[in-house]
């Protein structure tokens, strides 16, 4: 078996895995009832994006630093997003005594 036939050298496997992560993230984002659960699902979507970037970076790009730097930037943005989102969640919990997404609906009338 030549090394190029192994499934870890085929880009489709990584792309399918990234698609699975993205789909799981979308499912969690729709079905989760707490804000932290939705945040975790959003992190899965971020991971899917960086896995996709690195797959294309490994197989189809002439300059292999581009995708790695993009994945690094995605990680930094995810960290910033988590910091902000968690502080908002803590503030919401202080005011509403709940992190349930349904509880924060005063404006819906």
């Amino acid at each position, binding site marked *: 078996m030549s090394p190029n036939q192994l499934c*870890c050298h085929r880009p489709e496997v990584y792309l399918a895995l*990234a698609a699975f*992560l993205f789909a799981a993230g979308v499912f969690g984002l729709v079905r989760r009832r707490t804000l932290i659960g939705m945040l975790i699902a959003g992190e899965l979507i971020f991971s899917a994006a960086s896995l996709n970037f690195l797959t294309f970076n490994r197989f189809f790009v002439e300059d*292999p630093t581009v995708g790695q730097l993009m994945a690094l930037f995605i990680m930094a943005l995810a960290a910033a997003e988590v910091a*902000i989102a968690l502080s908002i969640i*803590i503030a919401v919990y202080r005011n509403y005594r709940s992190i349930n997404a349904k509880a924060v609906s005063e404006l819906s009338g």
Partner: protein
Amino acid sequence: MKPFPAADLLVLGVFAVAVLLTVAGALIAVLSTRLIRSVCGLALTCFGLALLYYFLHSPFLALMEILIYVGAICVTIIFAVMLAEPDEAPAQESRGAAFLWGGLALVVSGAVFWALVQLGWGHAWAAPTSRANAGTVHDLGVALLTTYSLAFELISLVLLAAILGALVIAHHGRSKS
């Protein structure tokens, strides 16, 4: 040089472990009812992804994945889980409605998955004819300080703004209560 015996099988085994970790972690993160378990699922997914990044010739990114996602993000989320309500409240909706909306979400995410897999699998991707560099940490550093220096500085500004914003929001909530 004689190759290591059954090297292909070993590589396949490690790859299978990485895929399994990623998939199982994502399922745990999305499906478990207790929040602390879904955070652990996210950490599992990140370990699997770090292994996959090794397979994708990005060892620096694998290290960063473990350092940032498992070491920083998961720990921060665990702190928030401990500060706030630990568990999801039992569903307010009726059994039929839960079944309907869960089925709908499953169908939508399944369709997204199927469509993306079709896109990725059916396409004849063109491999590059040449490589500009090897993509090592040295190349990454050079690119970060030459081509992408503006993006690098902007990211640091974003992180600074995020830290300040988190401090302000958390402090405001405390003074109010």
